[in-house]
């Protein structure tokens, strides 16, 4: 019943402008939708912050910036590994593809561990998703992003099993999106003041 899998992606002309993109065209529909969701969330954050700039600045100060920087480095490096996996898949080297994907996934897992410690600290300090407008948005956006990291790890696992060119292109496109979103979420929530 899964529409995407019963259909082969090897008839590119029918997808119109999506045909030129690497990987499965429906992945790009998903990526565009995700960017729209996070874009709207950040727009909402800007609006909420404009209404209450002092409280937002104060609570933003309590975030762990060092952990944020570490996570940015982890995801960027992981993205590089994913790109190497993509190159290996293009060269037809399944073993190296899987090794690079495993490396990318390991750093993704590292991201989740760091994020987990961060959340633990924030909960301990008495913040949660309902405690203030800032923390509602912080937990929603970063939590939703973390769920995408989890989904990304599952997708990398699946495309690693297949290790074909199209599959790896599709999976790493998703992973790069997760990476890209963090690059916008991190400065907005942790740094901009």
């Amino acid at each position, binding site marked *: 019943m899964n*529409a995407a899998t*019963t259909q082969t992606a090897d008839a590119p002309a*029918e997808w119109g402008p999506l045909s030129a993109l690497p990987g499965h065209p429906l992945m790009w529909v998903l990526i565009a939708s995700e960017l729209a969701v996070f874009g709207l969330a950040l727009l909402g954050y800007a609006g909420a912050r404009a209404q209450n700039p002092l409280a937002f600045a104060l609570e933003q100060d309590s975030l762990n910036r060092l952990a944020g920087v570490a996570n940015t480095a982890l995801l960027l490096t992981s993205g590089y590994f994913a790109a190497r996996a993509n190159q290996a898949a293009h060269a037809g080297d399944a073993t190296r593809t899987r090794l690079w994907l495993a490396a990318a996934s390991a750093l993704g897992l590292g991201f989740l561990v760091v994020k987990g410690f961060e959340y633990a600290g924030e909960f301990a300090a008495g913040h949660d998703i*309902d405690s203030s407008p800032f923390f509602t948005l912080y937990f929603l956006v970063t939590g939703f992003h973390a769920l995408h990291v989890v989904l990304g790890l599952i997708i990398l696992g699946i495309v690693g099993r297949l290790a074909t060119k199209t599959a790896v292109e599709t999976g790493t496109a998703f992973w790069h999106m997760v990476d890209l979103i963090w690059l916008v979420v991190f400065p907005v929530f942790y740094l901009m003041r």
Partner: protein
Amino acid sequence: MQYQTQNIAKTYWLGALLIFAVQVSFGLVGGLIYIAPNLLPVEYFPFNMVRMIHTNALIVWLLLGFFGAAYYLIPEESEREIWSPKLAYVQFAIFFLGGLSAVVGYLFHIYADNARSYLEQPVWIKLGIIVAALIFLLNISMTVLQGRKTAITNVLLLGLWGIAIFFLFSLYNPANTSEDKMFWWYVVHLWVEGTWELVMASVLAFLMLKITGVDREVIEKWLYIIIATALFSGILGTGHHYYWIGAPGYWQWIGSIFSSLEVVPFFGMMIFCFAMVWKGRRDHPNKAAMIWSLGCSVLAFFGAGVWGFLHTLHGINFYTHGTQVTAAHGHLAFYGAYVCLNLAIMTYAFPYLFNRAPYNQVLNIASFWITSAGVVFMTVSLTFAGALGTHLERVQGMSYMDAQDQIGLFYLLRFGGGVVTVLGALLFISSLLLMPRTKTVVTGAIPAAAE
């Protein structure tokens, strides 16, 4: 008609048209009560009962229409007869009698004690609906599984299974009012902004395939993109019903963000229909079916998409919650997305079912413009009523009944729109049922779908 069992659709659609007439008539009665509350004897026409019949009959006939559409298009898509025609008629009898006795029961004040809008049926009728749904799913799933599988039947099946599964939540009635509402939306929202959209997309895809003759491969790609965006936005879009009902505050953000994107699949369906008609090589003789299909996609975009977006952001909904803005949106959304869809597939299929060339085209096309004009006029009147009512009541702090007095003019205008709508609906029904005596049989083979 290529398959004998497509005839089953006739029974379903005739039943649907009958209840359609009941539904719009009670709408008119409701509109009349708004402007002249004491004209009709209240003991026979209490507003709550009239409203209940208006909304319940709507759901029953739309579902009958969907069932009919499934029985009509699945044989053609699967290239085989329906698995068990006998079961299909048994299912019709259970569903139609259940629906009818629920509506008649409301007249005698028989409904569930824990009544929730749309789901006022007593439990035994709910169980009957579930039995009918199980028979239906068995029947069409067996047909599809044994036949050719296409994207259209896959999406249709997914939608119909979803409808049945989410209906199960109607049996769960938590005592806590907030929880009760949350689960109520599992049925109502996940139907009209989830599974019904899948049905809508697949039936529109079938109509485009037949009417325009565009390649199936192209139509399937559009269908995938439309349903991907519908599910992506619609599921978490449920959050826009969780404002101010006791659910945690973060639902305001989830609801606002995801439901803003609910306009995307409707926009996609509109672009899809127009792109296919422009691209199409085939000059199909049933122009009325094409107009209903195009009208469906446009009015759904405005009614469900634009009018939904008007009050979906929580900052705006804080003021408009439960005002006539909701009624405006409800009318155009149901009409555009699901009424027009049913009338489109009926207009397309009736000539084939009765083995005739397309008939009463002028009458049918006129009924499209008249009914749609009536509904759009009602929608605009209610939008004004809602905007003005919101300002008077929620911004200026006027009491509810004083504000209602101020917006009375718009209820009068809405009633006028309602009269036009009912006339249009009756015209549509007669254009389908009153066939010309001189029978022009379809000459030559029925045009085969482009594959």
